[in-house]
């Protein structure tokens, strides 16, 4: 039996759409009750009475928002299920308010052909508790040499194409990828990094790397790659999305390319928005990710670019790694941190509570904007819309404790950090897939508990 849910007394916050306009006819900030049936929002009124067999969620004081979209996660699974699998990864996503996550193709083996994509899609069906949209590789084995069967995989459901982690350094291959992408029309997501410039580095190159005696990754390794890929795109046409932009120089290039009318989009991660290399705990591998935490100047540029709309979306780059791997010395440990459970709160505090962005504009960065880049329907709270919902208490202060994380891996620089704004309930396709049992126990009255 499909579950039925009534959300009471919440404030509906809808994101602006990708053009910055109100995304639905429901005005933001309205207090409305929301009825959900068969995976869809069926009624929105100021006062709805609970019916039999209806779970009731008390959203008093909470914001009721469309579930978030993360356009960049690494859910591992397959040969890397010791780090994360689609079950634990999507549980972490649900806990963070995400109802759609885009899973990168650098799986083991890489998602570079129909057979592997088929395995990934089957895993998703078996294990995912929120929507997982798989990305497939641009080149076979992520080697940057031969194109994959992009059309076949697009038809199977690949949402985008990316060699994330392994930038395509041969520009002729990149050119052919842009050209060939016309056949499927899906975005290509670039991991902008010149591997020669970054070779051997493990943190941002700057006064911190000099002080700590660490080989640095210059911001030019990102910006130089952004520049050359923009030039190839300018020649071929098409569209290109830059993942996890971290450097002011890259952002300036993207701003310029957008102003020139190129179809370029970009995202940034929560960690690059809130941390600079000066805030690293020296030699703590929970602060090691690629691209690395950059300088304060870069952090400011990311914030400004998000406010201006030069960076279109916030994406987590959730990257689980085992404790064993992360316990290696800093220079030998793998890059990456988990981020699904902390993303909303970190960015909410940095952008909204600081007064730099209106809530609905911020919300667009994690809903409508990534949806538009991916070509999926715009998430919104309105009658007839798919019931993917995050219910967040914007006033709640909470501590993120790594032991409570749903992820299999515990590599986060934010453990123990005090955060503001907590996702309490996540509804996916009309079902409650997450609620914070510790902090929201009294808010949720499920049918099984109240009926019979």
């Amino acid at each position, binding site marked *: 039996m499909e579950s039925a849910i009534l959300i009471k007394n919440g404030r509906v916050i809808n994101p602006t759409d990708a053009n910055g306009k109100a995304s639905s006819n429901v005005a933001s900030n309205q207090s409305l009750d929301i009825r959900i049936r068969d995976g869809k929002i069926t009624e929105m009124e100021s006062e709805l009475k609970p019916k039999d067999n209806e779970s009731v969620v008390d959203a008093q004081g909470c914001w009721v928002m469309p579930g978030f979209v993360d356009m960049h996660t690494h859910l591992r699974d397959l040969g890397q299920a010791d780090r994360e699998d689609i079950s634990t990864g999507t549980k972490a996503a649900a806990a963070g308010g995400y109802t759609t996550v885009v899973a990168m193709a650098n799986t083991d083996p890489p998602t570079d052909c129909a057979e592997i994509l088929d395995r990934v899609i089957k895993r998703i069906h078996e294990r995912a508790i929120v929507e997982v949209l798989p990305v497939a590789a641009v080149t076979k084995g992520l080697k940057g040499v031969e194109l994959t069967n992009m059309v076949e995989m697009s038809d199977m459901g690949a949402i985008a194409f990316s060699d994330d982690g392994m930038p395509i350094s041969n520009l002729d291959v990149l050119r052919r990828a842009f050209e060939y992408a016309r056949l499927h029309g899906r975005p290509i997501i670039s991991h902008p990094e010149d591997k020669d410039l970054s070779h051997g580095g493990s943190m941002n*190159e*700057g*006064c911190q*790397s*000099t*002080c*700590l*005696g*660490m*080989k*640095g990754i*210059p911001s030019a390794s990102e910006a130089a790659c952004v520049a050359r890929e923009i030039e190839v795109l300018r020649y071929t046409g098409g569209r290109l999305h830059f993942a996890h932009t971290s450097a002011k120089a890259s952002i300036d290039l993207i701003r310029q390319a957008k102003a020139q009318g190129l179809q370029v989009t970009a995202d940034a991660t929560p960690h690059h928005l809130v941390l600079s290399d000066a805030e690293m705990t*020296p*030699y703590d591998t929970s602060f090691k990710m690629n691209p690395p935490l950059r300088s304060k100047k870069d952090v400011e540029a990311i914030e400004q670019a998000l406010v201006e709309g030069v960076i279109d979306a916030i994406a987590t780059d959730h990257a689980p790694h085992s404790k*064993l791997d992360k*316990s*290696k*010395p*800093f*220079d*030998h440990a793998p890059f990456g941190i988990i981020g699904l459970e902390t993303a909303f709160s970190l960015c909410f505090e940095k952008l909204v509570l600081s007064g730099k962005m209106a809530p609905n504009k911020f919300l667009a960065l994690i809903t409508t904007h990534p949806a538009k880049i991916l070509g999926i329907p715009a998430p919104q709270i309105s009658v007839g819309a798919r019931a993917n919902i995050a219910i967040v208490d914007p006033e709640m202060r909470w501590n993120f404790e790594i032991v409570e994380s749903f992820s299999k891996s515990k590599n986060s620089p934010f453990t123990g950090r005090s955060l503001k704004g907590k996702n309490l309930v996540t509804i996916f396709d009309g079902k409650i897939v997450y609620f914070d049992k510790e902090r929201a126990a009294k808010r949720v009255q499920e049918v099984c508990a109240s009926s019979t």
Partner: protein
Amino acid sequence: MSDASSLAVEKSTKKKMADETDSNLILPDNLPGLNAWKARRHLLDTKDMSVEEVDALIAVAKLCKEIHSKGRPPLTVLSHKVVANLFYENSTRTRSSFELAARKLGASVLNLDIRMSSVAKGETIEDTARTLVSMGVDAVVQRHSSSGSAHKLAELLRHEVHVLNAGDGWNAHPTQALLDLFSMQETGKTIKGRKVAIIGDITHSRVARSNIWLLQKLGADIHVAGPPTLVPVELDSFGVTVHEKLEPAIKDADFVIALRLQLERQDEGLIPSIGEYKRLYRLDHERIKRCKPDVRVLHPGPVNRGIEITDDLVDDSKVSLVNLQVANGIAVRMAVLYLLMYDGQGT
């Protein structure tokens, strides 16, 4: 009976000797840094040392040097202690120096050739740390190619075992910097206001970093010069004056530290050739005329003779402190071991 008496005599002689040697390490009471040393568990870097700690260390090193240079039998102050040498990287000199220093204080020394054994089998620093704790080792002298590895070991061992950093990647080599300081001070010059020039491959040099942090604390004016490809970015933000060319860096310098040039830097494309390096940065008698007349030249060794510094200059004992540095290394390491480990319980 005669046996018994001779034993008694021997015993009293032994006691007398012990008293004598112990007396050599009776420290002056007016050393404000001693309390800080009592609270300190590890020596990882010069960055976190206070000036008082440095002064106390140098004072103790002077006492150690007297004992060491007079060829006295080993002390017994650390006779109940075990010091493990854990060298993941080759180093004959530093390892021997630590070993001698530990033995001169009466400690037992365990040399673990980790590079060959456990790491090859996939053992982590954590495993090694646990093994050392289980073995009951009191101190670990570690050298490792990863920056921060000494901090990591110290974090894992917490209060159980002392960690002495004998070099971690490009980051720190505190005893080298301390012995350089000791050698500079022995010339009779105070460090405050002195110009110290560090020449060569700064980027990859833990010796350079540890010297910069240490000598700056004592008020030295640090200048560096090296190929721009071997000088780390934003070094000037730490108050260091960065030069491309040798000449302005060593002009009027009181001390010049020449760094070892790893010959593989050429293969890595960081310098075009050893010849070009010599042309630009090799120290010789002619070039050091720009320095103060009483300049002293140091080198952490092993010297690539004729590359960083000419043969004649290394061997010119009026200018070169290289041999003194080696001797002082033992004294400084004795002092560090003593200050970290002495608990009043040696026999």
